[in-house]
């Protein structure tokens, strides 16, 4: 374990260097997170005459800009790397290293965070300027907890990707499986439409699925739509998901690696 810990700073440094080296690629990735802006334009057009539920025009602006920020901060792309490395057999090189591959992937993904911050901070500040401070939660505890909820959201995203990616040890089509996951994410995470605006049963179902805790929960909390006791309860649910998925990912990897036979290399 101490050896693993000592490796982490190096892994982070390598990941950061990679993020800087492929900066054009990074910018393109960031730009492709444009969906919240489209939905923002759409919903402000809808809310021009009268609010929808408790959402007025400015609420939609706050909601979707916060969505954009959380989405930029919680990006992970381990599934594509995994798929590629398992198919090409290059995962074998990773297995030779004394650090668990999952940890290495996590460090690589996380170390792009400073670059992502550079983009998301101006958006967050712009949002503050446009819609004003009163759209931000006034509760200091919730403000302080926001980074924790974002970390939890990132962990759920990453671990779910790791589990679905590990399925590539058994089936060839982990990619299309992940597309289904993404489709469910679009609706049940509040990415496309705030969950409250759905029929009641959808919002209820979303409370039992992990997607909500990957996005809608931090977003709703930071724009002051959840009172403190509810937010704390949801935080507990979020981290329960994190622990469950972490155990799942470990199990899936332990089983999958036994099946792994590298070709080539």
């Amino acid at each position, binding site marked *: 374990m101490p050896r693993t810990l000592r490796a982490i700073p190096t892994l982070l440094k390598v990941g950061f260097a990679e993020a800087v080296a492929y900066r054009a690629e990074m910018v393109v990735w960031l730009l492709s*997170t444009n969906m919240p802006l489209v939905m923002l334009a759409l919903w402000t057009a809808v809310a021009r005459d009268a609010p929808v539920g408790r959402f007025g025009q400015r609420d939609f602006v706050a909601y979707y800009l916060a969505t954009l920020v959380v989405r930029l901060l919680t990006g992970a792309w381990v599934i594509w790397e995994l798929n590629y490395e398992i198919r090409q057999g290059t995962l074998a090189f990773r297995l030779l290293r004394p650090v668990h591959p999952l940890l290495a992937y996590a460090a690589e993904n996380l170390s792009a965070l400073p670059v992502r911050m550079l983009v998301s901070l101006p958006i967050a500040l712009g949002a503050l300027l446009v819609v004003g401070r009163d759209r931000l939660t006034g509760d200091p505890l919730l403000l302080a907890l926001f980074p924790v909820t974002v970390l939890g959201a990132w962990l759920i995203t990453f671990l779910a990707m790791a589990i679905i990616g590990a399925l590539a040890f058994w089936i060839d089509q982990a990619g299309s499986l992940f597309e289904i996951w993404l*489709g469910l994410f679009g609706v049940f995470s509040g990415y496309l439409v705030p969950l409250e605006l759905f029929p009641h049963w959808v919002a209820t179902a979303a409370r039992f699925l992990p997607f909500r805790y990957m996005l809608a929960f931090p977003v709703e909390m930071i724009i002051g739509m959840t009172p403190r006791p509810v937010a704390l309860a949801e935080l507990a649910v979020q981290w329960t998901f994190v622990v469950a998925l972490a155990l799942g990912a470990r199990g899936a990897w332990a089983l999958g690696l036994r099946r792994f036979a590298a070709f080539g290399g």
Partner: protein
Amino acid sequence: MGRYLRLLAVQFRASAAVAMQYRVEFLVEGALALFWTGWSLVPLLVVYGSREAVAGWSFDEALVVMGWFTLMKGVLEGAVNPSLTTVVEHIRKGTLDFVLLKPADAQFLVSTAKFEPWRIIDVLGGLVIFAVAFHRMGRLPEAGGVLAACLLFAAATVILYSLWIIVVAAAFFVVKVDNLSFLFVSIYDAARWPASVFRGALRVIFTFVVPLAVMTTFPAEALLGRLAPPRALLIAAGAVAFAGLARAVWLRSISRYTSASS
């Protein structure tokens, strides 16, 4: 001309043969395509759950736009996207030389290299959405409207293809273009909404930079009989001009191509 038509038939048969090999994958892909078509209607239903009309578009009219979106998506993912993804792979591996050596136009060869026949399900899905929308409106599209819509469909396909050719040409310079195509697809997603919904910067981008309005909104207006014929002709002319530009960009990048392998 006849030679190129024969060549197209050959390439298409080869793609169909490849596609036939993975029958289970087809069925799964087909089922998934149907599922996604249904799923993509969810935000539309929610938006119109609280409103009669958005930016002057009623639910049924917005449904026609969605139909065009689904149909064009089928064209994009079935006929345009697969072959041009193959070129990018060629450029990266340096095997484009083999294509360039062949005694036919390189742009023609690379743009017909691969089809995904099962994407026809998306096209059918689009037609079903039209049928539902017009059934709900209780009328049929007029003959002139259908004609204009067909013209605009051709124009939209040409523009979509030309945009892709330009993106691919970018691969000659930046090599790693998969992300660029990802960005393109994510922007195309906005085409499922009528263009008049967007304002400000987004509207400028979607009209001039990536002409999404031409791909879904204008054909929908034509089908609804709201588009004046001169405008349709103007758009068609624009599409032809754009194709010319794409051709020029392609020729220029081809002339500067130096093989990566040898």
